[in-house]
């Protein structure tokens, strides 16, 4: 089996995503859940990087406008930039809500969220 970075990175990023989702599914503490979400988001970002084929290509900053081959695909980089910012935003909002929730109820445990139920 060929263990180059190119083949390992997708598997590694997928592992991070699923590990994060596993954390979201099983953890009870809200802070830990947000940490897990961040892990999953990092995995997604790595997945986008792994698509660019960066092992063979150069950084897409052109020295000469006429030579445009041999560089990596810039679009996934642009998408990651967006998804990083959105991930940060989600984490910040989630933590703020958690802070306020903790202040009101004194708990961080999701299983104790019983204010709303059938």
């Amino acid at each position, binding site marked *: 089996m060929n263990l180059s970075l190119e083949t390992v990175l997708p598997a590694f990023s997928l592992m991070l995503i699923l590990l994060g989702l596993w954390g979201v599914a099983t953890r009870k503490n809200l802070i830990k859940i947000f940490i897990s979400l961040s892990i999953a988001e990092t995995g*997604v970002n790595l*997945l986008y990087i792994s698509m660019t084929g960066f092992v063979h290509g150069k950084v897409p900053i052109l020295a000469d406008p006429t030579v445009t081959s041999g560089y990596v695909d810039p679009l996934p980089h642009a998408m990651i930039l967006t998804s990083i910012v959105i991930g940060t935003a989600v984490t910040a909002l989630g933590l703020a*809500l958690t802070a306020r929730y903790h202040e009101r109820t004194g708990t961080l445990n999701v299983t104790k969220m019983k204010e709303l139920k059938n």
Partner: protein
Amino acid sequence: MHPVLFIAVPLLAAFLAGPLSQIARKGWLPSIILVIAAIAAGSMLPSVLVQPINETVVIAAPLGINLYAGPAAILLILVTSIFGILLTGSKELRDHFEKSTPSTVLALLHFAGIFGIFLSGDLFNIFVFLEIAALSAYAMTAFSDTTASLEGAIKYLLAGSIASIFLLIGIAVIYLHTGTLNLAELSSTMPMVPAAAKAVIISAILLALAIETELFPLNLWVPDVYEGSGSALSGLFSAMTIKATLYLLFRVITLFGVDQSIIDLLIGAGLLTMIVGELGALRQTNAVRMLAYSSVAQAGLIVAGFFAGAHSAAIVAMIAHSAVKAGLFLIIALAGLSGSVASLTGIGLKNKFVGVTATVLILSLLGLPPFIGFAGKLLILQGLNSSVGIGAVILVLVASLVEAWYLLKLVSLIWKTESTVEFSFKPIHTVILILPLILVIAGGVYPKAILSLTDKVANDLVDIQSYRTNVLGGSATIESTDLNGGTQ
């Protein structure tokens, strides 16, 4: 008229929310922006029905982002903004907007996100707008700063974040295998994607959209969010937000040309959602929560109807549902009640107009003639009968019986004599209820007028070929440009 202004103007208004809310006092700013959007959409609709507008942002379609203003997008923008005005203009929400600028910002960005979902023709761009709409919805849920609303917001945020992770995985796999993010181009390249990858793409995207469109079994968070956020916001989510995600589901799944088995799965999920929703609503004592379950059920019916081939009927049902839920949630908000079903007792005798409106809206929700809901439900049943069989029809009818049970109980409560609570309706506040009332009655009496419009709209959603031609230009045949690389 440039479709991008639907997105850019609310964004600009949000950035300028501080100074602008000095001019548009008392929290009217979001309503004003929605009025502008509704007028713009209304004036664009006749021309768009003939020739859809495709706007290029910076670079032409397969390479850059395009905004596609077809009949479906513009009609739904019109409908959602009209019923959005009802709710943003309600006292409950305007109080929030007046108290703090941030809440105005959140509402405006929510509208920008929703209009972006309707218009955008690029998958990643749609993700961005979906996130704008979702993040603002999470924060809006926490408007009232009660434990319940914070809990609802946290649950909403967790569900939405998982949806966005799956959507991002789907987009990554799509880009890896097709090399494009443009929906029109994807409609021709998706059939060539290897089966294994296609399965991952479809399941990831369906999972994400099923969470967003509140399909069973991924909708457990919905009633909590609605109950936590209060009646006016629930109305806003019901009338605007779900409509955008439903449109997205229909658009994406139609363009991707999925297998019949996936379509069957979606119909089944829709029917199940309806039954579970109606059964859930049956045992509620909180009116907002009851209507939330009913919204879930209606979304399920619309999804089942659309994928069973009753496209036009599904659009009618979407419009009818927006009108009905905007009206009903507004009535609860106007009454300023605790939200329990019992507290609605005698509301119709206090104010006849409100009582009649509520009754008409509820009967339309049930699908009784002569109201608009009847046309939608009947046509959906016909579609289900011809493509799935009589079993599906019976399921929907059983669910409707359950629905009739709790909704008719509600009607009888509204007209009950012994009133327990004092209501203080200001007549001026109830005037706006005339909008959904007129639509529901007019659409029921002249269904032909609405149906001729929705037929064109539905055609815009399902006619993939003309979507491609409109977005990518008519001259180049798509297959050849795809395979030779899009460098021209």
